[in-house]
């Protein structure tokens, strides 16, 4: 078999292989940095895409809910966790005439059964087809005809396609349309007309209290404000008139989204701080390890000098060693973080409880490239001092040491 010629590239690679434990430790430290930075950045992008998508397409500026149920509505919108709450429907006509209100659409929420192992928790939502401006923008294909009493529209994460039959409270429904991925609670919700929702609640004996006049109740009212008016001004008009009489409260979607943005900013600070710590740590550790191995490698370097390697060749070899370690750590970190984020993206979003959308492959590649470039800097930056100082000692003296 032909032996490989001794080149600077070969020597650098063999040096890494010769000390597998040291090399693995260095690669792991660099991997921690690249995985944290890449994983954190992709996750933040996913969250910010989900939030901006929600802000752009939610459509409503103000959400009117019964007093004390603001959080329930937010949770239903963001995570799709089912809940039921009601307010009087005659408020809709009163809100319509308020100055600055452009459109009003009610919704009726029903929490589906949550029994047994895999019976999924589904939020059933009754919506008003005539006035709706919340659901329609998300539909994959427009409805040719209005929904009838046996038809529903399903969220993107509901395992049913158009034309399929699904059962709720033993009542079969046909899927008339499916929604696009919203990244929020709508993905796990099922939509039907308000009369159908009321009928279903009666059939399933879900109504308690004022059963005779149940048709006069809805869960929340979505209000779209005229662009010339501020949502705050509209709320200020509604508050003194109806807040006490109807026992209602208001959720400003901008406020809700700005709270989420604040949380996201905090999260990004943690991710970038952690990445910065790992980056500095990697530089320090490689610097210390390369400097400490300086003495034990003096004879090796001297021998190479005697064999004909120039000083610049030796510097190149040491820099190449650290570059290979950085590249391996960077690639490993990006691949591991990418695979974990891809595999568990749904679980992560569900655990955080925020809307989430997957970033495009192009964006992902751009992030990966940026993180990889940052990682590549680590090795040469931390080993340049050691590399330069290694070549300064006297070759003859070093070889004779210990004789």
């Amino acid at each position, binding site marked *: 078999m032909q032996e490989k010629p001794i080149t600077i590239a070969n020597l650098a690679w063999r040096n890494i292989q010769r000390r597998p434990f040291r090399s693995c430790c260095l690669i792991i430290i660099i991997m921690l940095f690249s995985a944290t930075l890449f994983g954190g950045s992709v996750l933040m992008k996913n969250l910010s895409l989900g939030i901006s998508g929600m802000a752009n397409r939610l459509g409503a500026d103000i959400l009117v809910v019964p007093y004390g149920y603001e959080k329930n509505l937010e949770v239903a919108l963001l995570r799709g966790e089912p809940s039921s709450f009601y307010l009087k429907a005659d408020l809709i006509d009163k809100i319509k005439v308020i100055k600055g209100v452009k459109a009003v659409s009610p919704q009726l929420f029903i929490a589906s059964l949550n029994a047994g192992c*895999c*019976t999924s928790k589904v939020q059933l939502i009754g919506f008003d087809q005539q006035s709706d401006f919340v659901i329609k923008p998300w539909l994959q294909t427009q409805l040719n005809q209005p929904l009838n009493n046996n038809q529903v529209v399903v969220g993107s*994460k509901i*395992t049913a396609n158009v034309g399929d039959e*699904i059962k709720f409270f033993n009542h079969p429904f046909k899927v008339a349309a499916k929604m696009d991925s919203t990244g929020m609670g709508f993905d*796990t919700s099922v939509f039907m007309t308000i009369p159908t929702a009321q009928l279903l609640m009666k059939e399933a004996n879900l109504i308690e209290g004022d059963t005779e006049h149940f048709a006069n109740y809805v869960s929340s009212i979505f209000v779209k404000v005229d662009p010339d008016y501020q949502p705050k001004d509209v709320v200020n008009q509604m508050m003194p008139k109806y807040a006490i009489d109807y026992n209602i409260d208001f959720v400003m979607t901008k406020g809700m989204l700005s709270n989420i943005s604040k949380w996201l900013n905090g999260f990004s600070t943690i991710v970038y701080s952690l990445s910065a710590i790992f980056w500095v740590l990697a530089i320090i550790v490689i610097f210390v390890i390369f400097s400490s191995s300086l003495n034990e490698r003096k004879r090796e370097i001297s021998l190479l000098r005697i064999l004909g390697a120039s000083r610049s060749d030796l510097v190149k070899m040491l820099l190449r060693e650290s570059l290979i370690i950085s590249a391996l750590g960077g690639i490993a970190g990006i691949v591991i973080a990418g695979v974990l984020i891809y*595999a568990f993206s*749904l*679980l992560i979003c569900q655990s955080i409880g925020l809307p989430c959308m997957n970033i495009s492959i192009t964006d992902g590649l751009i992030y990966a490239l940026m993180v990889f470039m940052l990682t590549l800097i680590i090795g040469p930056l931390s080993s340049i001092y050691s590399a330069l100082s290694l070549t300064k000692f006297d070759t003859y003296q070093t070889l004779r040491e210990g004789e």
Partner: protein
Amino acid sequence: MKNRIVSSVLFIFIGALLILFPLYILPVCPLPDAQAIPATTMAGDGHMHSTPGKIMKCFWTARAEIGIGSLVIAIGALVLFSRSLFVRIGLSMALACTAVLAAAIPTILIGVCGNEMMRCNMGAKPALILLAIVLVIAAISNVLYLNKQVNKQIR
């Protein structure tokens, strides 16, 4: 010796994770109440609106993975006690095939709940697939390494 210890510890660790993930770390959907389960309950069709108390696919997937995980642990232990390189190559090949089976259980052979938002679908399934991929890579790498050693010895 070094290879025997490292590879065997790695295989035993992955085998243990194959058991622990669907049961404790990222568990499949919880079992319905005992009274609600009929004696003859069989795995359902994965439809999300099943009748209350019905045991779903993910439960059986977790059970099957206990068996596969135990098998991986057993083979990992055999790798530790096998001095012959050829036996270790054979055991590693068997592990690679077992890993394919471990991935096939939650995807093709049994599956998990139909709804994407169920916890078995979001956590246990991708975890089991990833573990199976890691096991395949580890087993094939070990086969290649041992093959190299055998060639060295022959030379």
